[in-house]
C-alpha cells in the first residue's frame, strides 16, 4: 500500500515543479506613470569569476578521483552514493547543470568547424577528462560526477528488467543523437543537447513548460526503468560506452575469484551484468559465421546508404537553423514581412539584411547540411553495421561480470557479492542452496 501512496506523492511532487517553473516565466509590466519618477537602471549581476571555471574542473577531478578510490580500494557503494549526491548538488543545483561534459562535445564540434569560435578551456577539460578516465577505469563519470545520471540514479525505486533486444535496439539512439548534435553544432545551428536537456529545468527550478514535463517524465520513468536518459539518449554516454570497453581497469563484481553464487545476477538495475555463457553457445555455429560475413560485407553498403539518405534529407534537417526556417517562412508567406508581432521577423527586419541576403545565407547552410548529412548518415550506417556484427560475436564467459560498455560503475553489484564478507547472508544459507 505504501508503495502505491508514495508513487502518487512522487507524481504530485514533480508535476508541481512544472507549475513553479512555469509561473516563474511570468513578468510584471513596469509602472506607466507619466511623472518625474526615474525608473532605476536595470542592473546585471556580475559574471562569475573566470577562475571558478578551473574550480569546476578541479571538483570534477576530485569527484572522479575519490570515486576511483572508493571503487577499486574501498569497494564502497555507500561512499560512491554520497560522492554522487555531492556532485548532484554541486554540478546540478549549484552550477545549474552548466558546465556539463555531455554538452561539451558540441563546443568541441563548433570549435573545430568554426575557426571564429574559441572553445573554453574548461569545456574542453570537461569533455576530455571523463573520456581519459574512462579509458583507464571505466565509466567513473557516469557513476558519480554526472548530475544528470545521479538524479536518475537516486530515484530508482523498483527497476524492471528490459529485454536485451530492446536495450540493443534503443542503444542505437545515443549514437544517432551524438551525430545529430555534432552536425547541428558544426553548422552553427544549435546546441541540441543543451536545448533538450530534460533535467536542466529541475536544477534551475524553472524552464519552459514542456521541458519541465519532459524532465519529470524521465524521472518518473526512471523509478522503474533505471537511468532511461543515460541508457537510451545520452550522446556522451555513447562515447564513454565505447571508451569503457577498452578501459585498462574496470569495476569487478567480486574482489577475488567469482564463486558463481549468482546472487549478483539481478543486482544491476541497468541490466549491465553479463552471465556465463551456456555450453551450447560456446560451440561454433555455421549460421553465425555466415551472418558475420554478411554483416561485415553490408557495412560499406550501410555507410553509403545512410550517407545518401541523411544527406538527401538536408532540407528537413536544416530547417532547425534560424536562417533556413526564416527564409522558408518569408518565401512561403511574403505577407508576413510586415508582421510586427513575430519576433524573428522583427529582428530580421531590424538587422538591415535583405531577403536576398537571407536567402543566400540559408542556401549556404543547406549546403553544409547536405555535405554534413553524408558524414552523419555514414556514421549511423557504420554504427548499425557494427552493432549487428557484434551480435554474432560470442565470447566465452565462465563467471558473472560487469559489461564494460554498459556498466555505470555505480557499485551496487559489489554489495551483493558474498566473497570476502563472512557475515553476508549467503553464508548462512543451506550449502545445498548455495549451489544454485
Amino acid at each position: 500500500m505504501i508503495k502505491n501512496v508514495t508513487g502518487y506523492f512522487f507524481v504530485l511532487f514533480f508535476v508541481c515543479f512544472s507549475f513553479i517553473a512555469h509561473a516563474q516565466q511570468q513578468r510584471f509590466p513596469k509602472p506607466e506613470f507619466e511623472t518625474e519618477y526615474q525608473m532605476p537602471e536595470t542592473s546585471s549581476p556580475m559574471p562569475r569569476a573566470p577562475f571558478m571555471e578551473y574550480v569546476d574542473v578541479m571538483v570534477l577531478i576530485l569527484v572522479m578521483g575519490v570515486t576511483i578510490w572508493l571503487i577499486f580500494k574501498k569497494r564502497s557503494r555507500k561512499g560512491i552514493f554520497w560522492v554522487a549526491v555531492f556532485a548532484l548538488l554541486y554540478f546540478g543545483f549549484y552550477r545549474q547543470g552548466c558546465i556539463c561534459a555531455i554538452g561539451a562535445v558540441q563546443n568541441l564540434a563548433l570549435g573545430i568547424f568554426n575557426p571564429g569560435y574559441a572553445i573554453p578551456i574548461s569545456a574542453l577539460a570537461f569533455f576530455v577528462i571523463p573520456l581519459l578516465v574512462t579509458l583507464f577505469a571505466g565509466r567513473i563519470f557516469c557513476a558519480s560526477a554526472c548530475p544528470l545520471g545521479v538524479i536518475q540514479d537516486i530515484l530508482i525505486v523498483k527497476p524492471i528488467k528490459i529485454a536485451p533486444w530492446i536495450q540493443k535496439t534503443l542503444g542505437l539512439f545515443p549514437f544517432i543523437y551524438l551525430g545529430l548534435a555534432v552536425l547541428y553544432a558544426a553548422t552553427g545551428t544549435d546546441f541540441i543537447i543543451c536545448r533538450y536537456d530534460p533535467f536542466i529545468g529541475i536544477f534551475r527550478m524553472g524552464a519552459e513548460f514542456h521541458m519541465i514535463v519532459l524532465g519529470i517524465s524521465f524521472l518518473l520513468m526512471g523509478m522503474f526503468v533505471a537511468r532511461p536518459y543515460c541508457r537510451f539518449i545520452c550522446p556522451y554516454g555513447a562515447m564513454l560506452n565505447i571508451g569503457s570497453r577498452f578501459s585498462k581497469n574496470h569495476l569487478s563484481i567480486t574482489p577475488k575469484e567469482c564463486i558463481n553464487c549468482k546472487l549478483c545476477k539481478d543486482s544491476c538495475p541497468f541490466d549491465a551484468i553479463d552471465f556465463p555463457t551456456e555450453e551450447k553457445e560456446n560451440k561454433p555455429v555455421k549460421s553465425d559465421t555466415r551472418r558475420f560475413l554478411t554483416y561485415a560485407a553490408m557495412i560499406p553498403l550501410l555507410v553509403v546508404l545512410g550517407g545518401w539518405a541523411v544527406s538527401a534529407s538536408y532540407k528537413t534537417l536544416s530547417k532547425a537553423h534560424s536562417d533556413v526556417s526564416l527564409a522558408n517562412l518569408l518565401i512561403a508567406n511574403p505577407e508576413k514581412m510586415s508582421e510586427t508581432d513575430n519576433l524573428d521577423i522583427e529582428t530580421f527586419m531590424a538587422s538591415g539584411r535583405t531577403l536576398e541576403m537571407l536567402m543566400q545565407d540559408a542556401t549556404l547552410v543547406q549546403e553544409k547540411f547536405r555535405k554534413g548529412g553524408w558524414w552523419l548518415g555514414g556514421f549511423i550506417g557504420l554504427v548499425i553495421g557494427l552493432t549487428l556484427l557484434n551480435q554474432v560475436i560470442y565470447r566465452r564467459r565462465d563467471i558473472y561480470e560487469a559489461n564494460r560498455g554498459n556498466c555505470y560503475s555505480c557499485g551496487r553489484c559489489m554489495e551483493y557479492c558474498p566473497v570476502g564478507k563472512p557475515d553476508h547472508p549467503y553464508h548462512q544459507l543451506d550449502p545445498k542452496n548455495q549451489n544454485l
Partner: protein
Amino acid sequence: MNQTDKINQTKRIILIAGIFTALVSLLMMLNYMQIRGSKPLESKALEVLVEKLSAEQGNQELIDEIRQLDLLARKAYFSSLWQIRTGAWLLLIGGIVLVIALRSYYNMQFSIAPPDTDNPGERKSRLLAQRWIGAAGIIVFLLAGLSAFLSADHLQQYEAVQASLNENQPDDGIERIRITSQDADDDIQVIDTAEVTDVEEDLSNEGYGAESTRNTDKKSDEEVIEEKVKEAIPVALTTSLVNQNYNAFRGPWGNAVSNHSNIPTDWDGVTEKNILWKVEIPVHGYNSPIIWGDRLYFSGANATKRVVYCMDRHTGKMIWQQEANNIPGSPATPPKTTEDTGLAAPSLTTDGNSVFALFGTGDIIAFDMDGNRLWARNLGVPKNHYGHSSSLLTWDNKVFVQYDTQDGSKVMALNTSSGNEVWGTSRTSDVSWASPILANVNGQYQLIVLGNPDFSGYNIKTGHELWNVKCMSGEVGVSPAFGGGLAFAANEYATMIAVNPSTGETVWEENYYLPEVSSPVYHDGLLYIGTTFAVIASFEATTGEFVWEFDANDALYSSPVIADGKLFIFDTTGKAYIFNPGREPELIASPELGEPVYSTPAFANGRIYIRGNQHIYCIGTN
C-alpha cells in the same frame, strides 16, 4: 529500536513527508491557477479611474487613488510570486525527506534472495536483437529518405517570389511613398553636362530637378503635363552639379574642397558683424550642414524624435521639417549614445532629387526636395558605444553608407530611388566613426573608407574591395582625404599614411602629428590636419615630411576645408583660423563665432554656413 520499529518509523516519515509534499503541491497549484488568470493591471476599477483621470487631468486625489490601487495589485501579485518561490523550497525539502525515507525503507526491506535458475538463451535473444536493429536501421533510413521527398523547401521558390515582390512592391521593410520612374536606374535621364554648366552661379530654382516649375501659380494643361514629366524624371548627379553645391559632409565627394568664391574672412559672432542670419537649432545634433541650390539641410535628434530640417539658406527661414518616424525595424528605444555624439552625428547628403539622412538608430530616410517622404528603412541598430557618426555620400544613383559596428562592419550602396541595397560588402574592421569619401582614380570612382585596421578602396559599381592596407588602430573617427593621386588617412595613437589607390601600395607613413576627430585635407601638394591638442599642421603630401605647425587656442574637432583658395578651420571655442595655404603658416584672419563649434562648415558663393552648438549661422558680407 529493532528493525521492525525502524521500518515502521520510516513508514511514518514517508507518510508525513508525503502528506506535507502533497499539501504544499496542492496549495502551489491553487496559487498558480490564481496567478495565471490574474491580470491586476487590467482591473475594471483601475480602468474606470484611469478613464476618469483623462477627463479630469491633474486631479491629485484621483492620481493618488490610482496609485494606491496599482500598488495593491502589485503587492498582491508579488506576494503570490513569493508564495510560489517559498513553496518551491518547501516542496524541495519535503521531496528530499521523502526520497531519503523511501530509500531507507527499501534498504531496510532489502534481502538477497536466492536467484532463480531461469537463464534466457543468449543466442535466441541475440537473433531477436539483430532483427530489431535491422528494422531500426531501415526505419531511420526510410524516414530520412522520405523526408527528402516530403519536406517542403520554399527556398526553391525564391526567384518567383522575388519577382512577385518586385511586381507588387509589398512592404519589405522599405516604405515606398511615391513610386516614379526613378525606380529603374536605366530610366534616369542623364542631362548633358554642358547644359548644367550654364546654370546661374547663384543657383536659382531652375536646374534642380523636381524643384523646378513648382512656383507657378496658374498652369496650363501643357505646363501641368510638362511639370509631371519633370517630376518623374530625376536629374542625374553630375560632377558639375556636385561642384556647384555642397552636397555632403566636407563638401563635394567629402574631400573638403569647395569651388565657391568670395568667401568672407572677417566676422564676429558676438557683435554679429557679417552674420547675415543666426537661427536657433530646434533639436540638437553634431552633423554638418549641406547645401543644394537655395536650401540648407541638416538634422537633429533626441530620445523622442529624429528630424530633418530644410532652410532657405538666404534667409534662415525654415522651409520644411520632417520627422523620421514609423520606420519598420526602428527600435522603440533609441540606443544609448554619449553626449558628444548623440543620435544625429551623421551628416546628410543630397543628389538634388532627394535628401538622405541617417540617424544613430540605424534609420535611413529619403525625402524629396520638398520634404515629401520617399522611402525609409532601418539598417539594423548600430552597436556603437559612442553612437554611430559616419556620414552619407551619394553618387551614381547610390547612397553610400559605412556601417562599422561592434556587431560587424559593412559598407553598402543603396539605390537612391528605392533604398534597396545595390551592393553590400562585409568588412573585417572594428567599430569606427569615420565617413567615406569618393575619389576619381584613373577615371574610375572609388569609395575610400577608413576603419580599424582597414584603409580600403571599393569599386562603387560592384562593392568589390580594390585595395586594403591594414594600418590603423584605436578608435578611428578621422575620415580619409584624397588628392595628388594619393589617398591619405590618419588617426591619433596610430599613424598617418599615404596610399596609392591605383595599386594599394603604401607611399609613406608618418606619426609626427596625428588628428583624432578632425579629418585631413589635401591642397596643392600639402596635407593639412587639425589635432585635438590644438595644433594645425602641414605635411608634404608626396613624402609625409613635416612642413609647419600652428598652435590654435583650443581643440580642433571641425575639419579643415579649402574654399576660395584658403584654408578654413574652426576650433571648439568657435574661433576660426584662415590661412593662405602654402609652405609657411600664413594666417590671414582668426575671427570668432562666440559659440562652440564641433561641425564642419559648408560653403556657397560669398557664404559660410556653420553649425554652432546651439545656432546655425550664415556668414557673408551684406
